[in-house]
């Protein structure tokens, strides 16, 4: 039996990393099985009709170790993650469900802290958690707690963000520094042996997005950059839109502590998970004023243009490096593991 055959027989952690292997699961298992017109676009949310309204509907499951990390916790993650998936689809997030799978032995007080954090995040986002479910599994069969949130939002006024809107010349904008969430969680884990001052950036971004929409700027597409980082989102979008994207490495905002932590572990901030970062494609004439408006919002103070859509030559992302050379910014394969080489 060849090694390469066996690799495809079992699910490994690499399949959950958000890169190529995760994509393979979607393409080879989920889409063929579920196959329908709402799923096909594979957007952050599905757009469904309810009478004359268009609703955005999305779901996300959360597992994180440790449950509480600098800047947030699994509860806050669960609410913000789903709120953001709805908001980047152009919808106004309204209602969430919360499904909990709890491992036997989790202290009730811990559950209380998580739930209160969810309420705080929901209030901040202006959404209500209207239904839920709880299951308990045997000790050893769950990482403390898994949370699934599904959400519904209302799409107003014909706003359609789609990769098909993207055109050469579009500017690519991010609302803040990259890599905070992933490195905050790494730091909080036992065994990687280092401490830092990094806080997760987990935040509900629907308020920021609403402010951006109010400017009337010509926004073509947006997506939140979660696991796999900004590089993954850019690759997904480049591929879906069939365009070549150029990223200007010096323009990408990364905080000093995150840079230091990434150097230590051998990570590239472009691939590190975020929970409060959106990647936005906007028409060139509007990018400047859009960034200015974003900088006025607490979750956009370090907004910056980081790249441009070059042409329709193919779905690739090219990085212009700090020394002025160019190289491909490829999809992540497998989990990013700390390395010594």
């Amino acid at each position, binding site marked *: 039996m060849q090694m390469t055959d066996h690799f495809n027989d079992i699910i490994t952690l690499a399949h959950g990393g958000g890169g190529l292997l995760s994509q393979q699961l979607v393409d080879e298992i989920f889409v063929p099985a579920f196959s329908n017109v709402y799923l096909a676009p594979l957007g952050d949310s599905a757009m469904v009709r309810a009478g004359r309204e268009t609703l955005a509907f999305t779901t996300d499951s959360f597992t994180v170790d440790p449950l509480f990390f600098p800047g947030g916790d699994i509860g806050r993650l669960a609410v913000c993650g789903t709120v953001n998936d709805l908001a980047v689809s152009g919808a106004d997030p309204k209602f969430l469900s919360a499904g909990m799978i709890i491992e036997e032995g989790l202290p009730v007080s811990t559950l209380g802290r998580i739930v209160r954090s969810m309420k705080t995040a929901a209030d901040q986002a202006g959404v209500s958690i209207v239904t839920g479910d709880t299951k308990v599994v045997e000790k050893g069969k769950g990482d403390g707690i898994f949370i699934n949130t599904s959400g519904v939002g209302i799409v107003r006024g014909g706003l359609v963000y789609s990769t098909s809107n993207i055109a050469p010349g579009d500017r690519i904008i991010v609302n803040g520094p990259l890599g905070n969430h992933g490195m905050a969680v790494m*730091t909080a884990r036992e065994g990687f*042996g*280092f*401490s*830092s*001052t*990094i806080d997760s950036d987990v935040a509900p971004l629907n308020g920021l997005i609403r402010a951006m929409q109010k400017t009337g700027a010509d926004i073509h597409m947006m997506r939140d950059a979660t696991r796999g980082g900004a590089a993954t989102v850019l690759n997904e979008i480049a591929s879906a839109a069939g365009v070549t994207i150029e990223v200007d490495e010096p323009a990408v905002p990364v905080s*000093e*502590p*995150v*840079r*230091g*932590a990434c*150097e*230590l572990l*051998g990570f590239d901030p472009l691939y590190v998970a975020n929970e409060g970062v959106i990647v936005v494609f906007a028409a060139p004439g509007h990018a400047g004023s859009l960034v200015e408006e974003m900088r006025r919002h607490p979750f956009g103070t370090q907004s910056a243009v980081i790249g441009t859509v070059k042409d329709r030559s193919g779905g690739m992302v090219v990085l212009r490096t700090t020394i002025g050379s160019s190289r491909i910014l490829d999809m992540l394969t497998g989990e990013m593991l700390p*390395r*010594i*080489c």
Partner: protein
Amino acid sequence: MCLAVPMQLEEITGDRGIVTIGGAKREIGLNLLPDARKGDFVLVHAGFAIQKIDEKEARETIELFREMERLA
């Protein structure tokens, strides 16, 4: 191989030290660099300081590069 990062030695306790870069801190072994002093910049690899960064040489190399820019 090998990923080694220049970090500043902030504290020494016996044969262990605390090094820092951009706010990230790590505890490392100093057994391979017994003459390391607080404030030194050291090369950190796999949890140990493996060599001291010669700051004078570092400055000279940086100056060399700046000189190149000026001539360009």
